[in-house]
């Protein structure tokens, strides 16, 4: 079966991102496919490459990136949500003339809500976390 996941919470303020990550692993370990993970609102903080976690805590941003690499996942962050929160890829940083370049992890892509609508129409199950 084909799944998509929506993540609406950041890595720190609530449990949604951690729950979504566990669910994503379970989907993949159960032999289902994970078509897309769409990060919306506070969820876009999960794509930041600038987070520095304490050594004795899990780093959820790194864990999402690693899962994305392992399974070649389509990790999409909402452009409107991300720009407001200062999560930019290199081309957005250049467009808005931000010194230092982008800070989005390379495993993610920036796109629009159309990607969420597209996933909602095509997958068998859409599951939303956080909020």
């Amino acid at each position, binding site marked *: 079966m084909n799944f998509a996941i929506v993540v609406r919470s950041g890595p720190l303020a609530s449990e949604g991102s951690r729950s979504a990550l566990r669910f994503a692993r379970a989907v993949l370990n159960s032999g289902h496919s994970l078509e897309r993970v769409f990060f919306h609102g506070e969820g876009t903080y999960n794509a930041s490459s600038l987070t520095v976690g304490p050594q004795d805590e899990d780093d959820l941003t790194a864990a999402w990136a690693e899962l994305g690499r392992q399974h070649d996942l389509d990790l999409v962050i909402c452009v409107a949500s991300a720009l407001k929160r200062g999560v930019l890829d290199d081309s957005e940083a250049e467009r808005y003339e931000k010194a230092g370049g982008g800070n989005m992890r390379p495993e993610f892509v920036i796109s629009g809500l159309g990607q969420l609508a597209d996933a909602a129409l095509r997958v068998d*199950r859409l599951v939303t976390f956080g909020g």
Partner: protein
Amino acid sequence: MATLHLISKSPSASDALAACLRVLAEDDAILLIEDGVYAALAGTATSQTLAGIASALAADIEARGIQERLEAGIDRVDDHGFVDLCTRCDRVMSWF
């Protein structure tokens, strides 16, 4: 056309579960996750209503140390059980 309802908030902090119960259809299922698992604490009117309807996510129960205090009739499911529940229902709806 059954729906799986996901409740992630405690019933004492949010009316998500109460709102969900108002529209719950006969074949629907409820999964309690995160702070939503507090609704499975035995001996409350809410947990008695949920017996036979709801299940609760094992990792979130254990994270809160309430595994010995659960209402009978509310099943525990692991993360793979969560995925299975999604496949057995026609859609999944999250309440916040």
